[in-house]
């Protein structure tokens, strides 16, 4: 009966209840939508970072991590490669030669670059550099000495496909080399900083020049980015002389942002709930004060205080129980829609790219977030109910009936 009275009371003042239900609905929708955008953005950023550069796991000489010097190449590369080939969890791997202190010498001046020697075929299986080529091609004419450079660099130093490119670097033995390459491809990834700094060349061309093959980095992919964590630990045990790291260790900020997004969601929701809290309190307080005589009458004829209290609490809860699921539903549909179709952020894409982000944003949210949100809404409603319900209990039956 209390449920029935409370439910019908909700609809007594349709406008007022409607407004508060709408507010709850909109608040939750906005919270979900905002959270899903941030989550989608970080996810995409992580995926891009992993897909273009980092991959799931990287192996280095431990010294190289501290000081990216040419001399800290991986020792006993053959052993490492044998170990990797034998592991079923590893889908593909790619070994890289990295000359961090390379110089690109052009007519327009010199530029510090990082020369990355790759096996184009291997690299293709591990990262997506090949798909970010915007002009020319990805090492397809293998004759001569091809190089791929970033679009920004090409523009700044006036390089076109087929142009000569001089790269200088010092090898492990300390010998200085100056090599002539030919621009075969221009790439544009999602990370401007990376594009400006990196020149890709085939590692075997470098080995021919220096007379020895040296590798500083082996990147590999497994099935999922979550599986990488365990695999990295296993590999580390098998390769005690190397440093094996999964993506979260290679790029700690990627791991942090994942966690931060969770915190951000609760922060968004918390702020929205706080606003809703006062909205609900206000509405229920009005409802109670408007019904003083009726509540007084109920207590006069024998309705106990706990029941009156419960009635107000249930009534408040109903507001949330109508608004909450509606908000979650609309939020879910919105997230679904933009999760598939995406939101085009082309307008601000230039800025986004420098942060390592794609211009299409796909919303995303964990199903468990809905449960958390539902719990938050219910807690908010319960919290909001306390003050008005206590106010109702303070009413004196004889006073409220007498008042005309």
């Amino acid at each position: 009966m209390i449920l029935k009275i409370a439910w019908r009371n909700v609809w007594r003042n349709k406008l007022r209840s409607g407004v508060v239900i709408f507010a709850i609905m909109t608040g939750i929708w906005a919270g979900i939508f905002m959270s899903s955008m941030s989550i989608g953005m970080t996810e995409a950023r992580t995926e891009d970072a992993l897909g273009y550069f980092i991959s799931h796991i990287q192996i280095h000489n431990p010294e190289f991590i501290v000081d990216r010097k040419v001399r800290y190449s991986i020792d006993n590369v053959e052993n490492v490669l044998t170990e990797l080939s034998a592991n079923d969890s590893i889908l593909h791997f790619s070994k890289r030669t990295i000359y961090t202190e390379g110089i690109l010498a052009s007519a327009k001046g010199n530029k510090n670059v990082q020369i990355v020697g790759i096996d184009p075929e291997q690299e293709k299986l591990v990262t997506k550099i090949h798909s970010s080529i915007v002009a020319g091609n990805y090492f397809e004419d293998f004759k001569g000495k091809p190089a791929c450079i970033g679009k920004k660099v090409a523009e700044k130093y006036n390089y076109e496909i087929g142009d000569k490119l001089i790269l200088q670097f010092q090898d492990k033995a300390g010998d200085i080399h100056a090599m002539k390459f030919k621009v075969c491809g221009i790439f544009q990834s999602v990370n401007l900083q990376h594009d400006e700094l990196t020149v890709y060349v085939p590692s075997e061309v470098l080995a021919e020049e220096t007379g020895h093959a040296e590798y500083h980095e082996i990147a590999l992919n497994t099935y999922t980015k979550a599986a990488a964590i365990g695999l990295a630990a296993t590999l580390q045990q098998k390769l005690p002389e190397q440093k094996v790291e999964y993506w979260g260790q290679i790029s700690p900020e990627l791991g942090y942002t994942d966690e931060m997004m969770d915190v951000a969601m609760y922060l968004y929701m918390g702020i929205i709930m706080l606003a809703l809290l006062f909205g609900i309190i206000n509405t229920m307080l009005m409802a109670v004060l408007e019904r003083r005589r009726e509540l007084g009458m109920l207590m006069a004829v024998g309705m106990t205080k706990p029941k009156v209290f419960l009635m107000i609490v249930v009534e408040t809860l109903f507001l949330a129980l109508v608004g909450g699921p509606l908000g979650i539903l609309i939020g879910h549909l919105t997230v679904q829609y933009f999760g598939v179709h995406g939101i085009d952020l082309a307008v601000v894409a230039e800025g986004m790219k420098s942060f390592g982000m794609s211009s299409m944003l796909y919303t995303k949210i964990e199903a468990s977030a809905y449960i958390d949100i539902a719990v938050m809404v219910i807690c908010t409603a319960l919290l909001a109910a306390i003050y008005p319900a206590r106010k109702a209990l303070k009413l004196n039956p004889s006073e409220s009936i007498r008042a005309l």
Partner: protein
Amino acid sequence: MSVIKVKGIQKIYNEGSAIEVRALNGIDLVVEKGEFTAVVGPSGSGKTTLLNIIGGLDVATQGEVLIDGTTISGMSENELIGFRLNNIGFVFQAYNLIPVLTAKENVGFIMLLQKRSNDERENRVNELLDEVGLKEQKNKRPGELSGGQQQRVAVARALASKPKFVLADEPTANLDSKSTSDLLDIMARLNKEEGTTFIFSTHDQRVIDRARRVVTIDDGRITSDVHHA
């Protein structure tokens, strides 16, 4: 044994302050079972105050109220709620009914609070709605009923749980003369048929004429107490 026994009741509002009001000034009153009693007096004489104290809605500053031999004067607020629920029927001047419930649900409300069985409640509610002539309106909400019909629902609700007595503070104050006389017919008939004790306050001479006992108070004191045949 008398249903109500009031001994030396005094009620002082805002005691000790500058706006102290002596609403009741030593009231002694005994009401026997089956009475149909009107409490009359000018505005501000203390009628409502007296009924509220008898009904356990208000606490006397001094004196004692015994209902069926039980003193209610020392009861806590929560004890009083339970006592009212099980012993007293109330009809107020206005705001008697729960607006979101139908006539039928309103009449059954007290019995529901008392946790009576569904069957018992159903029977009693139908019986009373029939008595007050609102069988046809049983599924209407108070807002869809006239003032007189609403008061009849209130009377039916007050009687539903067979209380020891029914207190009605100016039950006809908002009614036209036809509705007033209808309501009194119903109250008088229920008083006779079910033997329910009624105490009501009023200003209205036509209502006073229907009472079998008239207690007049003025300035917080009983000035006359007349039994009619």
